[in-house]
């Protein structure tokens, strides 16, 4: 029954705004879990009648699915209700009392003529309150019109009775006129002339009577047709109004109108055939249907790919616009908002309404059925409110909010719904807002915010199943961290493209990831440091400041890792510096033995190879002061040799060797000059 009620409620919106696409509407898999789409099933009432599936809270109509709990228009209306104060002011109370009085007066068994008149009079009073939206005036007018029609029918009936009397009299007159007068002279049978005159006289007498007879019969028939037409029109109008009340969920009005209908038409005919015939003649889809595309799909995916799209569209008979953003990553994505209106126009709206009316006429066959549905709806709404209050006490806010949303969708105008206190409603609003915020946070991959919201919702709603959103959040966090790690590795190996790609993916999955800024900053800082190190390396290399390169070798090794050419240059520098360092160490070791000349010669040897090394030069300078005679002899020898003073140069070399017999430089100098002096020496 509830499914039928909700189906009936949605027929109007689904037809007038036929394509309000729910989350996953374009994705039948999302709506049906991958099974054959429910809307493809013709069902026992066909696809033209809205069908509510309580299994997944979706409404099927015209091949499309609605999610009644996740509909932007419904949510907006629902939130407005949740923020409204309870309808407890004097006007509200008076209105409710008036409506209850009317219903009481029209209760079967009590609906006397006087009570009907009293109820009819109260309709004017009820329509004065804003909650009524002047519906009672409309009903009053319809009843008044129906009464006028009935009065007119009664008058026609009376007219027909008079006409029947006149026709009977005319028939008698005709019979008498056709029989002839007994006082008229007899005409002989062979007097043809006389016979002819007698016939003419009879026809003349009958002609007037026949005309009156025909006129009476025709008027009677015309009146009958007119009475039937009037009655059908009045019935159809009233039935349509009752159906409208039902469609707009004004169940009290349905019951009141139904009882007035029964009071007016006592023939026992409760069928809606008149309404059905009327709506069947209405144009439907000739002008095309208006479409509202409103998609708010919080769906998250574990394997989405691709980028984002922003777009808009224009319908053939209206305007449309939309925006769709689909951030993606290799493992997590969320689809956002899509809103648009297509083919919106008067014809399309009329066509939609006609379709809706035809649909509901197929669903409901009699006023008794409608009355039963309305009563059932009232009961269901009252029960829904009770259930909501009970669930509030139990702090089961998820179920409570869902029950309230369902109840509101069904009985928005019912007193029990209107009497709910703002404090009670605000709790559902709080849960609803947090839920929407959670969806929004997931949509933009604000995982930190989403996690916080999940915890908040858990605190206010004991029945909230946090496992699903938390699983999504944790998965996304993990995947984002993996991408960050890949980005870090790529940065370390100098793979810039991969690093950027991984960073982008990590950012798409979790844009507000605290580690993202940290790692990103670190990577960029590393890049900056690396670039600076490369510049320093080039500069030091051009200055032949190999010592500085050697002292900062770790920085340059890391910086040149991705530049093979520079890596080779660095390698050579470090190899040379290793030799220098070895020479220094060797010199220092020799010095420790007291062999200052030998230590100096070791330092000098390296210094000649790497003259720019300050440390080596310093060591050599220090050792020079410790072996001054040897050093002076050697330097003098070299100086004289350069001046081609071979004799004195050789003398100095000999002196150097005398100071330090193991001197390689002295030995080499002696050999070199000896060879020059005696080229053919053996």
């Amino acid at each position, binding site marked *: 029954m509830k499914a039928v009620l909700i189906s009936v409620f949605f027929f109007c919106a689904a037809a007038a705004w036929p394509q309000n696409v729910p989350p996953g509407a374009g994705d039948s898999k999302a709506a049906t879990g991958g099974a054959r789409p429910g809307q493809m099933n013709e069902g026992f009432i066909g696809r033209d009648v809205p069908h509510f599936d309580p299994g997944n809270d979706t409404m099927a109509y015209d091949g499309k699915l609605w999610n009644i709990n996740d509909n932007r228009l419904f949510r907006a209306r629902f939130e407005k209700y949740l923020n409204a104060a309870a309808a407890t002011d004097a006007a509200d109370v008076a209105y409710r009392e008036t409506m209850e009085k009317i219903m009481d007066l029209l209760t079967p068994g009590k609906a006397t003529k006087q009570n009907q008149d009293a109820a009819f009079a109260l309709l004017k009073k009820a329509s004065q309150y804003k909650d009524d939206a002047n519906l009672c005036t409309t009903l009053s007018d319809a009843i008044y019109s129906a009464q006028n029609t009935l009065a007119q029918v009664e008058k026609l009936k009376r007219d027909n009775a008079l006409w029947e009397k006149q026709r009977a009299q005319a028939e008698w007159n005709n019979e008498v006129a056709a029989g002839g007068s007994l006082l008229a002279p007899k005409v002989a049978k062979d007097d043809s002339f006389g016979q002819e005159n007698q016939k003419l006289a009879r026809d003349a007498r009958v002609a007037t009577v026949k005309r009156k007879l025909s006129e009476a019969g025709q008027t009677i028939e015309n009146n009958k047709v007119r009475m039937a037409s009037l009655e059908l029109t009045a019935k159809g109008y009233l039935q349509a109004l009752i159906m409208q009340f039902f469609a707009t969920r004004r169940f009290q009005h349905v019951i009141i109108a139904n009882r007035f209908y029964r009071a007016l038409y006592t023939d026992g005919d409760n069928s809606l055939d008149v309404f059905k015939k009327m709506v069947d003649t209405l144009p439907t889809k000739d002008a095309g249907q208006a479409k509202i595309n409103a998609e708010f799909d919080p769906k998250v995916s574990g394997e989405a790919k691709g980028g984002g799209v922003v777009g808009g569209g224009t319908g053939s008979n209206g305007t449309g616009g939309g925006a769709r953003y689909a951030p993606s990553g290799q493992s997590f994505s969320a689809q956002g908002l899509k809103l648009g209106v297509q083919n919106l126009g008067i014809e399309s709206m009329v066509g939609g309404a006609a379709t809706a009316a035809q649909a509901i006429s197929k669903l409901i066959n009699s006023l008794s059925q409608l009355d039963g549905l309305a009563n059932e709806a009232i009961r269901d709404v009252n029960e829904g409110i009770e259930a909501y209050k009970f669930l509030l006490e139990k702090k089961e806010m998820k179920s409570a909010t869902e029950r309230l949303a369902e109840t509101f969708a069904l009985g928005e105008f019912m007193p029990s719904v209107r009497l709910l206190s703002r404090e009670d409603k605000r709790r559902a609003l709080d849960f609803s807002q947090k839920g929407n915020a959670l969806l929004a946070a997931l949509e933009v991959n604000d995982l930190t915010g989403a996690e916080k919201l999940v915890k908040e919702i858990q605190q206010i709603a004991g029945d909230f199943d946090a496992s699903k959103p938390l699983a999504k959040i944790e998965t996304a966090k993990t995947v984002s961290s993996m991408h960050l790690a890949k980005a870090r590795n790529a940065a370390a190996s100098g793979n810039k493209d991969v690093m950027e790609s991984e960073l982008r993916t990590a950012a798409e999955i979790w844009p507000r990831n605290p580690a993202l800024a940290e790692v990103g900053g670190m990577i960029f800082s590393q890049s900056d440091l690396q670039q600076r190190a490369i510049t320093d390396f080039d500069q030091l290399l051009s200055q032949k400041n190999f010592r500085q390169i050697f002292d900062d070798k770790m920085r340059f090794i890391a910086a040149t890792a991705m530049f093979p050419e520079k890596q080779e240059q660095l390698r050579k520098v470090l190899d040379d510096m290793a030799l220098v360092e070895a020479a220094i160490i060797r010199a220092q070791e020799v010095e420790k033995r007291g062999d200052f000349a030998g230590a100096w010669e070791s330092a000098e040897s390296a210094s000649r190879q790497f003259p720019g090394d300050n440390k080596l030069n310093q060591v050599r300078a220090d050792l020079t002061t410790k072996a001054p005679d040897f050093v002076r002899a050697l330097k003098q020898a070299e100086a*004289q040799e350069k001046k081609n*003073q*071979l*004799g004195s140069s050789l003398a100095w070399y000999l002196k150097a060797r005398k100071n330090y017999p193991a001197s390689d430089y002295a030995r080499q100098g002696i050999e070199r000059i000896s060879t020059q002096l*005696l080229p053919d*020496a053996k």
Partner: protein
Amino acid sequence: MARRKKSSVQPLWFVLAAVLLVAAFVGSRLFQSGGSDPFRTVAELDVPAYLENANSLRGNIYKLEGEVSNSLAWSPTSGRLIAVDVKNETLPILVTSEFNAMNIQKGQKFLFVLDVDENGTLKTKSISQP
């Protein structure tokens, strides 16, 4: 009683005789040495000057007495290159081939008459035992 005058040699005569004797010895020694140095007119080589700047000595002939400390090289056509210790320095001397027949060994002392050539090399002109 009056002291009796002794008839002995006066000590002054002994002193004079000793002085004369010493003078005669020194004179004979001086005469003997001056007479045995055949290059007493040749100047001694100024070793420090040579070490500092041989150019200033280029083309001159000097004599030098020293002890052979080492043989540096030998060529049958050009001669021998030896190192000679002079005072506290060691100087290289090119013993030209004309002295090839002469035995020159480490530790021997010689008096060299030397020519300083254009690149400062000390070339022997004469070698003799001191």
